[in-house]
């Protein structure tokens, strides 16, 4: 079970899926929102396929994944898991992503970044969902708790 304390960060945070090839070369891609499945043991992360080609190849090859998800307050978690599937997104999932992406655009606009530039990344719909079964969750918030494993 994914710890409930992480749910808000998963739903609201900026995420990055990390993977590695069989020859141990890492790669990652940014996520554009996520949903937790009903059993609370896996997460589908939304990504743009054009930016995730190496990540998808690594997942097919190695199957291991890690996802860093954090919010502006610096609260962050690392989710370790296994690749389940890559799938097209439902209209409900696209709605979740749109809400997230609009929030990202607002946050970054508030940081003084040009809106047209921010929209090049966050204004575009994701076209694929990467589902991972989560095995371990670690605190990544900077500070004394960083690296602590949460009960799953």
């Amino acid at each position: 079970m994914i710890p409930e304390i992480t749910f808000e960060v998963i739903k609201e945070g900026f995420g990055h899926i990390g993977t590695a090839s069989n020859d141990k070369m890492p790669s990652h891609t940014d996520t554009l929102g996520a949903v937790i499945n009903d059993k609370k043991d896996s997460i589908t992360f939304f990504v743009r396929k054009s930016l995730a080609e190496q990540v998808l190849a690594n997942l097919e090859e190695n199957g291991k994944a890690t996802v860093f998800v954090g919010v502006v307050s610096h609260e962050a978690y690392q989710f370790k898991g296994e690749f389940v599937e890559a799938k097209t997104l439902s209209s409900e999932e696209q709605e979740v992503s749109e809400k997230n992406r609009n929030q990202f655009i607002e946050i970054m606009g508030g940081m003084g970044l040009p809106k047209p530039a921010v929209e090049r990344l966050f204004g575009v719909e994701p076209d694929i969902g990467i589902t991972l079964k989560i095995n371990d969750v670690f605190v990544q918030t900077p500070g004394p708790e960083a690296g602590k494993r949460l009960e799953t």
Partner: protein
Amino acid sequence: MIEEQHLPAMQGMFPSTFSTCSKDGEPNTTVISQVWYVDEEHVALSFQFFSKTRKNIAENPFGYVTITNPMTMDMYGLDIEFVRSETDGDLFDDMDMKLQAIASMSGMEDVFELKAADIYKVHKVSHLPL
């Protein structure tokens, strides 16, 4: 390798993402405040507290870091390899000063501490297609 067009993405205005891999093939990904330009073939990353990253790099020196131009959102992926750590000198002092400024702006003065400037060789720079 590193060209003029990449430099705006290395000013620390937009966080970078850094991935490593253990000897067992387990990836790890974290966010770092800045990737520093050292020369056309090298960058420096701040070693603060990401222990899993450091452990991985000790086992497998290869990493992947993405940098973003905050004015255009152009993103670049850098395939890098750990070379050495520096704990003093001009580069270390510059990185330490900048890190303290970032920490001060984000209320993390007591948390952010530069332990070393880690120097990496850049093997490849890819422009990610937005």
